[in-house]
């Protein structure tokens, strides 16, 4: 994403713009899904933007990212081109996964974005391996691994935590605790709902962070990534956040009441930052309107391009089942 800022206010404006970009993208996806233009499963990140944007501030282009099926935001802040991400939503050949991934499997190895992942917990061991490779090669990089609170109940989570801690690997575990795994509330899934405490039991520094406050996320991620990068071993951030929308486009949301959603919406990370900046005179309504319009224009263009883009020809579907060339 664009990085124009230098000073504090300019930097905050960048954060705001990045969060707004994700929100607009997600809300547009919802419309396109309802209109039948996007198919498959779509999991929106609205409400959780501060997590992806805050954590990404601590990462460099050489670091790696492993994500989940709720990964549009992670991909966008990682710098995957908007057009390529939107085309992937459409399943088009110009998409970042060539149309083979769709919403849940955005991928860009060149940008070290090792993918969305439709298997809950499936990405965690991969992150451990990426970090092990970095460590063996003696380079100081961070692998940021995103996953939800639900994933903490899976066996793969626990195997990964142990391996990373045992081998002192440079992984930044970013648990997006939005209080629900599909329709199951945190307390009904976890014997110890304090997830940072669970992680700490593996012998790694772990703490909760207000995931609705992008500056708090940025601060914590910065500290943790710095420690990871300098050989301090894996760190774990429990980013407490909330998804404003349904689990996926299908979910009737019978498991939480509207008042709860409303309460969390009052803590909207975008509004929160915008209000704070407005109060400090660092941004005006007019500026925000301009940003909105710029983002909308970029989205319009991405949607138009995605609509026009070709689908992978059926004949090429057997390509890349195996590596090309002689055995």
């Amino acid at each position: 994403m664009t990085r124009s800022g230098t000073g504090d206010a300019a930097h905050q404006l960048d954060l705001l713009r990045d969060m707004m970009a994700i929100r607009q993208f997600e809300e547009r996806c919802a419309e396109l899904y309802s209109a039948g233009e996007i198919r498959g499963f779509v999991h929106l990140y609205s409400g959780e933007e501060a997590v992806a944007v805050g954590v990404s501030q601590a990462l460099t282009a050489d670091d790696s990212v492993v994500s989940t099926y709720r990964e549009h935001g992670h991909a966008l802040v990682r710098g995957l081109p908007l057009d390529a991400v939107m085309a992937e939503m459409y399943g088009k050949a110009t998409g970042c996964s060539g149309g083979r991934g769709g919403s849940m499997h955005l991928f860009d190895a060149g940008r070290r974005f090792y993918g969305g992942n439709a298997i809950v917990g499936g990405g965690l061991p991969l992150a451990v391996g990426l970090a092990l490779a970095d460590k063996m090669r003696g380079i100081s990089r961070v692998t940021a691994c995103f996953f939800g609170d639900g994933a903490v109940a899976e066996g793969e989570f626990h195997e990964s935590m142990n391996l990373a801690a045992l081998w002192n690997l440079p992984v930044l575990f970013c648990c997006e605790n939005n209080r629900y795994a599909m329709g199951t509330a945190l307390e009904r899934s976890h014997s110890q709902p304090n997830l940072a405490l669970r992680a700490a039991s593996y012998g790694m520094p772990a703490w909760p962070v207000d995931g609705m406050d992008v500056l708090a996320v940025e601060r914590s991620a910065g500290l943790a990534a710095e420690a990871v990068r300098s050989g301090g071993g894996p760190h774990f951030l429990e980013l407490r956040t909330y998804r404003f929308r349904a689990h996926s486009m299908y979910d009737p949301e019978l498991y939480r009441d509207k008042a709860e959603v409303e309460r969390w919406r009052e803590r909207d990370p975008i509004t929160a930052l915008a209000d704070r900046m407005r109060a400090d005179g660092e941004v005006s309504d007019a500026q925000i309107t301009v940003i909105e319009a710029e983002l909308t224009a970029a989205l319009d263009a991405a949607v138009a391009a995605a609509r026009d883009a070709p689908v992978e020809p059926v004949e090429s579907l057997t390509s890349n089942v195996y590596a090309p060339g002689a055995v």
Partner: protein
Amino acid sequence: MTVLTLSRALNEGLRKAMENDPKVLIMGEDVGKLGGVFRVTDGLQKDFGEDRVMDTPLAESGIVGTAIGLALRGYRPVCEIQFDGFIFPAFDQIVSQLAKMPYRSGGVVKLPIVIRVPFGGGIGAVEHHSESPEVFFVHTSGLRVISCGDPADGYAMIQQAISSDDPVLFFEPKRRYWDKTEVDLAGGVAAALPMDRARTLASGTDVTVLCYGPMVRTCMEAAAAAESEGRSIEVIDLRSLSPLDTETIFASVRKTGRCVVVHEAPVTAGLGAEIAARVTQECFYHLEAPVLRVGGYSTPYPPARIEEHYLPDLDRVLDAVDRAFAY
């Protein structure tokens, strides 16, 4: 007779089984409060309580392993795996424990566990949400593997599966959940065809078409189309994939002299391969043509926009029928 969708028929079957036997339990991710992604367990927790319809955390291995422990103590757990692609975290418990313990105990231990798996494509989802993993379990001795093709069978077979003293992998064709047929709710299961028997759905004299699950409807449509062209297709719904009802299969092939096996799963080492080998061996002198197979291609499940090219359809079935006649 009542007209029900497959989803509803399964729901009624589960309800009946729970009423008849207090040892029957349901467990899985979001099966209780939410009623399951495909509504199959809708309302059951409300009526039977949280002790009998258990929402579990995300822990597929834990779900199946726990069910084994429960079964050892006399319960009859019905586990739901939310989607085909999520069964693999539980693979170890199914293959290494569930399938082997009764044999190892010399028959002393019985593990009457049903694992329900919505499977197959056709709903515009992607990999992990559209797969046909049945043959992994067919390959594993000690498991019964069955699949229902319509609501009437769904209603009866789920109850038979629950009554069975063997572990049963119960594959539900997810794209047929909303298909409707008449179901005899009053008749009970005693009169129903046993779940390990194949059912001849259409009698014919020219070629035997074997299918199961989502392909049953497709093959019935193909048979109707072929009839108008003067070809007489015998359609057999296998229902039991392991063990196979070879008696019914062989009798039909000896009559028609031709055999086409249809499934969504990749052709390579799919159930069709096993059937082709057995039919060739047992019906060799009756065959007018080699046993032909129609199935998915040997690629990972493709993205939504091109899945219709991957999934066997009426044309591909008829094309195989034509080829069987061309020998």
